[in-house]
């Protein structure tokens, strides 16, 4: 498997005196979390298939600082930001794609003021462009007619008004896109944002991810599609808590497309 993946680093490109078309910002979850690593690989397979000249920072990448900032630690956030910006500016990075809406939001919105100006895309936007440009194609198959509901990540949807790209991709799979009652602007959080991922919830009568998973399961989907590694974890846990892991899968949009291609 692994030999199929071609993952050059920015340093590799630099050594050859070249610039990649885009920097793939993998993010902490995408690098270390077992579930999220699968999403990372699925996305890389698609990039390879579409012959995108991309690079990663590899060991030169560091946390964007998002969880620190949302927890209130502005110092740590800005230290992380300035360090990352220094690295990326040294490589003269222009365009970034990431599969994590938190990295997407932070780099796109909060880095410019600190000296990091890049064009930043969420991987669903990037994949959509690849399809539109004809660099990648989807042959229906596997997901044709499947009931798929999309859970909007807060930091992609409400935070940045990206609602259509992931939905367009699901429709390209010829799947049946079904919307939850609370979707798009009104989407309910999975419970992970604002650094909640890293702590237990405060006392209450329910976990947020269970509430959201119930809303998704109400739609009787075969697949719950996600566009964020943290949402993915939360929804997967939610499906497990409802003991539905045998008939409902939680998958990232990149995985759906990679699977459709049998990659």
């Amino acid at each position, binding site marked *: 498997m*692994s030999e199929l*993946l071609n*993952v050059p*680093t920015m340093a590799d490109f630099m050594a050859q005196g070249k610039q990649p078309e885009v920097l793939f910002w*993998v993010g*902490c979850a*995408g*690098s*270390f979390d077992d579930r999220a*690593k699968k999403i*990372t*690989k699925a996305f*890389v397979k698609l990039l390879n298939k579409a012959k995108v000249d991309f690079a990663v920072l*590899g*060991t030169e*990448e*560091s946390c964007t600082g998002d*969880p*620190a900032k*949302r*927890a*209130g*630690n*502005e*110092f*740590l956030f*800005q*230290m*992380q930001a*300035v360090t990352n910006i220094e690295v990326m500016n040294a490589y003269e990075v222009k365009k970034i794609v990431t599969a994590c809406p938190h990295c997407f*939001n932070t780099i*796109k*919105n*909060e880095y410019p*003021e*600190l000296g990091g100006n890049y064009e930043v895309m969420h991987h669903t936007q990037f994949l959509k462009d690849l399809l539109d440009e004809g660099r990648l194609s989807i042959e229906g198959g596997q997901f044709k007619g499947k009931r798929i509901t999309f859970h909007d990540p*807060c*930091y992609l949807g*409400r*935070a*940045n*008004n990206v609602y259509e790209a992931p939905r367009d991709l699901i429709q390209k799979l010829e799947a049946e896109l079904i919307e939850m009652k609370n979707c798009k602007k*009104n989407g309910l*959080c999975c*419970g992970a*944002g*604002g*650094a909640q991922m*890293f*702590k237990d*919830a*405060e*006392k*209450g*009568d*329910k*976990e*947020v991810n269970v*509430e*959201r998973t119930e809303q998704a399961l109400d739609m009787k989907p075969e697949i719950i599609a996600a566009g964020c590694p943290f949402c993915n974890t939360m929804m997967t846990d939610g499906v497990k808590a409802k003991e539905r892991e045998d008939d409902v899968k939680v998958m990232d949009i990149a995985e759906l497309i990679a699977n459709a291609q049998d990659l």
Partner: protein
Amino acid sequence: MDYLPNILFALALFIGIGYFAKNVKKLRRNIGLGQDLDISDNKPERWKNMARIALGQSKMVRRPVAGLLHVIVYVGFIVINIEVLEIIIDGLLGTHRIFSSIGSLYGVLIGTFEILAVLVFVAVIVFWIRRNIIKLKRFWNSEMTSWPKNDANYILYFEMVLMTLFLVMNATDIHFQEMHSGNVISQFIAPWFSHFSEGTVHLIERSAWWLHILGILIFLNYLYFSKHLHILLAFPNTFYASLKPKGEFNNLEAVTKEVKMMMDPNVDPFAAPAENAEVPAKFGASDVQDLNWLQLLNAYTCTECGRCTSECPANQTGKKLSPRKIMMDTRDRLEEVGKNIDANKGTFVDDGKQLLDDYITREELWACTSCNACVEACPVSINPLSIILDMRRYLVMEQSAAPTELNNMMTNIENNGAPWPYNQMDRLNWKNE
């Protein structure tokens, strides 16, 4: 002696508007207690937002039932106020229905007012039923007891009384009824008074007229103490609301300076601090004066509708956090600080209290997922999340008082550049797994 009513009227008007002006001044002073914030950009877009959201009620109608009812009351309120203009002129000059000289258009106007008055009356009754009989959940959260609950009902009673007085005033105006123009509703009320003598009917008409205008003046002055202040502040609040993507949180400038200095190899760490070095700012907010003026304006604008709280994932799952309460607490504390300043000849004397802990607990602050659902839901563009974030900043940067798990997460980021204890050198291992 003939001028007595005119004089009394002028006096009432003077007191009513004067007291209101005094409170507006206080309001401005209190909002001015907040930190500076420069919002002078993008004026055209801001005007557009104000026209769309405040004037056009675009976010209200997202909940169709409440939205429609609210639009009725809102339009009714504004339009019927044209009538108040006539009342004021009549009152000052001692005339009677001075606008009636404009002919048939007058009938059309008053007819419209009468129909609106009935619609408003009905809408207000439905509002009251939703609040008190159906008991919609968002009106019964724990922060909606005592004053906030009564305030909401008082406003509804006020409007019912004002609308009734307006219709009675028209119904008992014998001269107006005889015009047979514009009395579309009041002609059906007039017969109720037909068994009274003409003198009595006239007395009722005068009483209704006076009570109506006095009621309006009292209502005007009630605003400052009530959530109903939103009818005025919704306009500046939607004008000044952030135009940035909701996910973008501000970068603290004071921190940027320090970080740049730490990262700059040319800075001599042992150099004596520059002469003009500012006193280090307080990071984040523990009290209302640490918030910026827009956040304080937000607090006064909040209409306590609870749309934010009903969309909040933390609140929906039984956590203590309620974004509405964050706004109400901020206003209550700001009022307390304002009164303190008034009582101490213009300076704030430490009262041993603050917004943090005395009003907003840490448990509430840490329950927020920063999902922006509250910001999206607010019909008047209030941002409760920004206050939550500033208070977290205080807890973390001034008090090192984050929950242990978050401290671990932050230590990991500091040491290995990831929120988990993995080595940065292993960041690309996935590619070979």
